[in-house]
């Protein structure tokens, strides 16, 4: 007779093994490693929660402390490889295989472990793509998650940094997996229930909050005149003509400059109410002046941001908040919103090649993707029209009948021609390609494919790739805004001049912008302290951003 509930019985056995260490669902923090050794089995797929912001740091340390004779060959399926512990589990032989999305601060060490063969790489994903695979072929047997607090029944409050938790729990709990949560406190009554207790099997009181990185805080004091110039070009040359109301911004200084120019330069251009009103965006402190000046109607967030909680709570018309008044973020929904309901993604990158492919992988650093490839791609399943989407589609394919023509999402790469340490943003060959050859990967880790990029903005001007009709035009359009990099200096000057006459390339002077007007006085806030003032004292920046 066949047996249709092996998974359910296996889960019951795992829970029974873990219960030795539990009182009800509660497990003492000192027994965390013993609990993991009892519940997890060799070869399991394990999701250790962590992304570019929140981290299940206690559970990460507990897993590293496990005996590799008991726990080995684990397959880690997780958003972020961010904490040292995330790689220690590979060095110690506890984990062997890895599928992930983002690895910012560990990008150098992960490269070393990949080259050394200590990590067997499945793939580098976008967040949404990895979440999708949780429901198809990478479903975790055990999820190790982080919450603000729990009650005695295991109901969880994940608070402003809810982020990936509902998605991870959904995939694990409803497919016979075990969910173990670390919490900052166990309380009698939760502010709100983000995860119902029947989806949570064990709760560990860490006695402190989980770690959160303030990744989306950009100090206005560090914004340069060149970044301001690129921001002016983007506002006048892209936001204004396309009328971009629904959008996502990357985390770089160029987009922070755009946020800080909305109430000043944007106001002068008469764009208020016409652009940048609806957002898929984390609570960027640099957007506070635009919010306070009435530019923004609403924002849905992937996660929260350190220091923004009180401000968000006091601006519930703008943000999505729970019955308790605090932010409810959700990475999966926000990524979906960015893919299907936003008309533009604009962000920075480290390398762009002559076809417009871009990558944040450079020699010795594998930073992963996070959400950028998802935000920075055209959603082929999109069916609803909007002005910017229709206009971009018409530029790309003027010959097609309007009613049959696909629209296009605006995917804009913005940056200075030379980045940190004078490294050029434009290259003949991406380091990502060399990496793929070295690691024998089927795919080079491309962040945004050239055929998804619609515009490139540098201090030299805007290249509109929608208007390029062949690969030569595209190459010269890219060279034409590549400044004094080797790629830029190797341009065909006459060709570039013809592209400029057609409006494929637009210089600052073509847009009526004098580079000498790119002045820091244009920034609505010129310091973190200014942001605090704009927020009426509600924004509480983390100490590393306080210099007063």
């Amino acid at each position: 007779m066949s047996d249709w509930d092996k998974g359910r019985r296996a889960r019951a056995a795992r829970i029974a093994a873990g219960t030795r260490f539990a009182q009800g669902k509660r497990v003492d923090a000192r027994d965390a490693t013993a609990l993991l050794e009892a519940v997890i089995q060799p070869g399991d797929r394990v999701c250790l929660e962590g992304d570019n912001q929140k981290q299940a740091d206690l559970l990460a340390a507990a897993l590293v402390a496990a005996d590799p004779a008991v726990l080995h060959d684990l397959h880690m399926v997780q958003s972020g490889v961010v904490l040292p512990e995330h790689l220690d589990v590979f060095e110690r032989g506890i984990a062997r295989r890895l599928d992930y999305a983002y690895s910012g601060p560990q990008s150098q060490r992960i490269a070393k472990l990949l080259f050394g063969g200590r990590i067997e790489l499945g793939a580098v994903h976008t967040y949404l793509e990895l979440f999708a695979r949780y429901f198809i072929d990478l479903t975790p047997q055990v999820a190790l998650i982080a919450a603000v607090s729990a009650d005695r029944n295991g109901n969880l409050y994940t608070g402003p940094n809810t982020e990936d938790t509902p998605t991870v729990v959904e995939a694990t709990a409803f497919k016979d997996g075990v969910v173990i949560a670390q919490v900052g406190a166990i309380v009698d009554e939760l502010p709100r229930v983000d995860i119902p207790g029947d989806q949570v099997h064990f709760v560990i009181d860490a006695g402190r909050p989980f770690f959160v990185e303030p990744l989306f805080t950009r100090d206005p004091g560090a914004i340069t005149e060149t970044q301001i110039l690129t921001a002016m070009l983007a506002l006048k040359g892209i936001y204004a003509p396309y009328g971009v109301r629904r959008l996502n911004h990357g985390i770089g200084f160029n987009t922070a400059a755009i946020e800080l120019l909305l109430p000043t330069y944007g106001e002068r251009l008469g764009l208020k109410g016409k652009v940048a009103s609806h957002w898929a965006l984390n609570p960027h402190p640099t957007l506070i002046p635009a919010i306070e000046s009435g530019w923004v109607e609403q924002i849905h967030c992937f996660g929260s941001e350190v220091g923004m909680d009180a401000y968000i709570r006091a601006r519930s018309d703008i943000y999505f908040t729970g019955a308790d008044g605090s932010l409810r973020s959700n990475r999966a929904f926000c990524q979906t919103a960015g893919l299907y309901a936003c008309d533009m993604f604009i962000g920075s990158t480290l390398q762009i090649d002559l076809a417009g492919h871009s990558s944040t992988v450079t020699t010795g650093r594998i930073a992963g993707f996070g959400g950028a490839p998802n935000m920075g791609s055209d959603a082929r399943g999109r069916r609803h029209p909007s002005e910017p989407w229709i206009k971009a589609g018409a530029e790309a394919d003027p010959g097609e009948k309007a009613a049959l023509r696909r629209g296009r999402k605006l995917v804009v790469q913005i940056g200075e021609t030379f980045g940190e340490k004078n490294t050029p943003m434009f290259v003949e060959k991406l380091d990502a390609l060399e990496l793929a050859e070295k690691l024998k990967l089927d795919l080079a880790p491309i962040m945004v494919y050239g055929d998804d990029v619609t515009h490139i903005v540098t201090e030299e001007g805007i290249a509109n790739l929608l208007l390029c009709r062949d690969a030569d035009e595209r190459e010269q359009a890219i060279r034409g805004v590549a400044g004094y990099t080797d790629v830029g200096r190797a341009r065909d000057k006459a060709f570039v001049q013809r592209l400029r006459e057609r409006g494929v390339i637009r210089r600052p002077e073509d847009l009526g912008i004098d580079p000498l007007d790119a002045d820091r006085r244009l920034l609505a806030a010129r310091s973190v302290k200014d942001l605090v003032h704009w927020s009426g004292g509600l924004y509480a920046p983390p100490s590393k951003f306080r210099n007063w």
Partner: protein
Amino acid sequence: MEHLNYKHTARARATGEKKQALVGVVASGNLEVLVERVLPGNECEIEIRTAAEGFGEVWKEVVADFVGRRSPGGLKFSINDGGARPDTVALRLAQAARALEGDGT
């Protein structure tokens, strides 16, 4: 420390009356430009002391583009460079030229 020197003949003499101006700061990734109205006719000279060696070709192009765009005849620029990127150099040169066109302040 590398020393570079470029001499050009500009299309026209720089406008304004101011004799000299100083823009920028000497700092890593930045530069200081002293501009003086001391040369005859349309002559223009740019003298560079830079911490970053081996970028002569790029400097040459940045300077030539600047002279073509702004016509700084009669001006001598002395640059103290802390390894600034070309976009910053171009901006500071333009700021220096504008400072001399200024209203005397």
